[in-house]
């Protein structure tokens, strides 16, 4: 059941009605039923693994909590009789138990994730291993991170575990976000899921508006440009220079419209039930640097990697020792930057691995990590250079330059992301820089890539609307602004939006419905 199918819209509205008409005490059960049905609708066999993941999450969090409590109780009961050394032994013993539970959990879930994503690829390269007929659970990369975050929080005593297995299941597979995020934190999501609530018209309408905007991005922009991107990337040897650049820019726009559109639909759908999910995008193409870009793009993944990989690695004993090692030898620069580089390398390597099974995804992660490291290293020198050249780094022109530079660097990264392998990505990037043919921007080249003139014009107009709305959102939320307008204006805007999706959306017979790009992860 794709978000873009009529089936999903009917399903969603049906469960909204059921949710608000059922007794408040069991509202969360309605959400669980909806989530189970939604996931089963994608594929019955796929539901098994996510259920097992949810059960292991419930079991591990509760076991860890029990061990926490046991330790606490034992220590408080024997406060006076135990010596300091004995207390340390007890603490270590419990810590080891908790750590073992966590390890089992991680082995099962991360192991599952790796098996589903990488086993067959590995089996292909190592002929000894047999290939398995594995059916990848949809959204496995997203919900696995979500439950890992939850278990880690319980382990670190930041969260209390959920005692109900069914509620844990709902947290794991909340249907609007299960297939492509955003990756939510237990403390913010779970209470909302289990809250007893009455229908709120404002939330409902705002949720619908957000979904509408998501459908616009996905169906009018992203799916329209699929043809161009496929043509270019499938026949990449026939193109060069600006032709590749055009393809890369269009793909970057397509990817954003696709992913953020899907997230808007997810957030809007969730809001219909009064559940507010975390934002995943904050106008990323207005970023002035790559590190800022990653604070605005796929924010929940960035947040997860920062909290559960970057900080723990940076604060880990080996890196602390390394920092001290350089510090003792008065290598200040090394003491400051080398542990940070190692942490960043691990973070971006993990980010690359998370994105997919091909080596190009690892390169994609490392490319962004590398750019961030370069930025960190050269930023002070760059500042000095600007001062010497008397460039005002706070002027609007310089900001525009920074935004354009970041967009260009991101666009190159997207070539790596979209290409099926590293050699193709390298070929395309090389050929982009070795041919100078700017006239293709004006000679009708774009109309030879599979979209006719009316379709292309619609795509360009839609991108302009996307840009305008992004600029508007800087000052205030567009949907809230629309919702505040007088009824005739509000209705006119909504009807125009609906009709633009209905008329200009890419769907129906003759079109192969394009799944969301992040659906595969």
């Amino acid at each position, binding site marked *: 059941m794709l978000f873009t199918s009529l089936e999903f819209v009917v399903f969603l509205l049906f469960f909204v009605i059921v949710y608000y008409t059922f007794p408040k005490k069991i509202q969360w059960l309605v959400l669980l039923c909806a989530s189970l049905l939604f996931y089963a609708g994608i594929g019955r066999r796929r539901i098994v693994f996510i259920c097992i993941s949810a059960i292991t999450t419930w079991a591990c969090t509760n076991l860890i909590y029990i061990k926490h409590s046991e330790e606490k109780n034992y220590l408080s009961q024997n406060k006076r009789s135990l010596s300091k050394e004995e207390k340390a032994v007890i603490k270590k013993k419990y810590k080891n138990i908790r750590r073992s539970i966590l390890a089992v959990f991680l082995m099962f879930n991360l192991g599952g994730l790796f098996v589903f994503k990488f086993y067959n690829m590995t089996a292909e390269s190592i002929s000894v291993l047999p290939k398995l007929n594995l059916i990848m659970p949809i959204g496995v990369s997203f919900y696995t991170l979500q439950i890992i975050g939850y278990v880690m929080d319980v382990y670190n005593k930041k969260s209390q575990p959920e005692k109900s297995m069914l509620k844990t299941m709902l947290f794991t597979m909340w249907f609007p976000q299960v297939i492509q995020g955003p990756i939510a934190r237990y403390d913010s999501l779970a209470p909302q899921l289990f809250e007893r609530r009455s229908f709120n018209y404002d939330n409902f*309408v705002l949720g619908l508006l957000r979904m509408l905007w998501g459908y616009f991005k996905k169906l009018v922009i992203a799916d329209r440009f699929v043809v161009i991107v496929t043509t270019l990337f499938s026949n990449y040897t026939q193109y060069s220079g600006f032709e590749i650049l055009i393809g890369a820019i269009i793909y970057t726009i397509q990817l954003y419209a696709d992913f953020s559109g899907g997230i808007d639909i997810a957030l809007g759908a969730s809001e219909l039930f009064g559940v507010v999910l975390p934002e995943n995008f904050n106008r990323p193409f207005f970023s002035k640097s790559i590190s800022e870009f990653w604070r605005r793009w796929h924010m929940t993944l960035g947040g997860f990697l920062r909290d559960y990989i970057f900080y723990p690695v940076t604060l880990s004993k080996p890196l602390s020792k390394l920092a001290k090692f350089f510090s003792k030898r008065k290598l200040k620069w090394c003491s400051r930057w080398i542990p940070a580089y190692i942490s960043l390398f691990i973070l971006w390597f993990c980010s690359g691995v998370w994105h997919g099974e091909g080596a190009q995804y690892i390169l994609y992660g490392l490319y962004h990590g590398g750019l961030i490291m370069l930025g960190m290293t050269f930023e002070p020198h760059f500042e000095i250079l600007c001062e010497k050249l008397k460039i005002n780094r706070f002027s609007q022109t310089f900001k525009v330059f920074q935004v354009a530079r970041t967009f260009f660097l991101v666009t190159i990264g997207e070539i790596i992301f979209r290409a099926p392998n590293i050699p193709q990505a390298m070929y395309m990037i090389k050929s982009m820089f070795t041919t100078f043919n700017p006239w293709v921007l004006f000679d009708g080249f774009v109309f030879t890539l599979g979209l006719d003139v009316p379709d292309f014009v619609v795509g360009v107009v839609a991108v302009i609307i996307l840009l305008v709305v992004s600029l508007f959102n800087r000052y205030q939320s567009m949907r809230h602004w629309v919702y505040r307008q007088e*009824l005739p204006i509000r209705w006119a805007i909504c009807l125009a939006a609906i009709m633009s999706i*209905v008329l200009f959306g890419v*769907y129906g017979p003759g079109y192969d419905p394009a799944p969301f790009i992040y659906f595969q992860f």
Partner: protein
Amino acid sequence: MNKKQFISFICFCTLAISIIFATGQLFRDKSTTIAGYYSIPDNTVDAVIVGSSHVNSGYIPAVLWQEYGISAYNVYSWSQPVWISYHYIEEALKTQDIKLVVLDMYGMMYGNSHEQPVEIDKVNYRNSFSIDVGINRWKMMQTVADCGIDLKDPVEFINIIRYHTAWKNINKEMFTYNNHNDPDFFRGYGLQTNVDVIDAPEKMVDAQPKMPYDIAVKYLDKIVELSHKKGFELIFTLTPYQFYPSETEIFLWLENYAKEREIPFINYAANYADIDFDYATDMTDMSHLNYKGAIKITNYLGQFITDNYPEIVKKDRNNKVELDADAKKVYRVFSVNEMTTSDYNNYFEYLSNDNEHVLFAAISGDSTYTQQFADACKKLGIILTSDGFTGVKDSQWKQFSEPLKMGDMELYADQSNAYLTVKGMDYHGDGKDVKFAIYDKVLERTTFYFYYDYNTDSIVIKDYPAKINGGIYD
């Protein structure tokens, strides 16, 4: 949600759905085969002949009326399987008090004839679903999910989903066309004039009854059930086509099926010799009849109905005038066709004495052509009273400074050339020619189109009257 919000929300949804629905209606494919049927007054038809293109080319309602006093209509769509026939019967029953349904059995051959099921499905999906929105259409859409080979999601057949890209080709007709006001004097018949010499098919020796495609049988049962429920009579027929010997087994099964239910089954395909049907002269291709073949089949059917269902024969009807007028037009087309396929001179002579035709001609602006044009007209026996070259009307020359339109024909000129288009198409030779179109004021359409070629001093025929009716789909 308070009461005001609830009302506001419902109103908005209603408005949005209405606009989407209306847009779907505007954008939908208007070329439905059932528009003519929708255009006739209610309760003026007693018999419908239902099926695929075999029905379209095989039965002539005008003959049934003129010769037997039966008010009939062909309700068909291209490559119509029997599960679609069921819904077309339902559609036909909406406005007419049908007493007899003649169901062509070709739809029962699904998966057993020379036509590949997937191809049948494709043609069916493309053409059969342009019927009015309603419960019947909704039910018909459901069939695509489990009938046939190329199964589809019924949602794909919702007009707005199917035709939403029509914004690229917005035209005036989208807003003006009314498929309930598109009369067809052929009453669902598609005239075919070509003769294709086809070998008579052979029947299988020692054939045993074989059950057709199970879903087709299911819907045949439903049609029989519907006939009992709605109280109409059923006749099964099968027009001649070049069937496989193995299809004889399906024929036998159908014979038994019909016999068990006391439904007449007239198998013209297998028993063609009984009605003096000749595959060598009466077919237009391997699946369809030319009009001579159609006349034979229709006469046989008319006689069969007269003998067995005399209550349907009503020569004095309220709509007799309209039926007579339609029949007159059909017979006029037949006579024109006879003349143009035998001897053009007779036809041009006939035109010269007939005030119900208008001849249009166009020639390139080169002055040297004027004389050649005059020569061409002379050769054709057309008498000119002036030496202009843009057009001729009622044997009187008229110069036209503005484009001249008449029905489906348009005559216009630019600086150097004069153009003559029929249905928006500009037929022409190599430029050294005079283009002619004959517009029939009775039939309200161009019936004949040809050009006179100077180089070869010959007449090149571009369009027979038959083709103006649309012709056979595939």
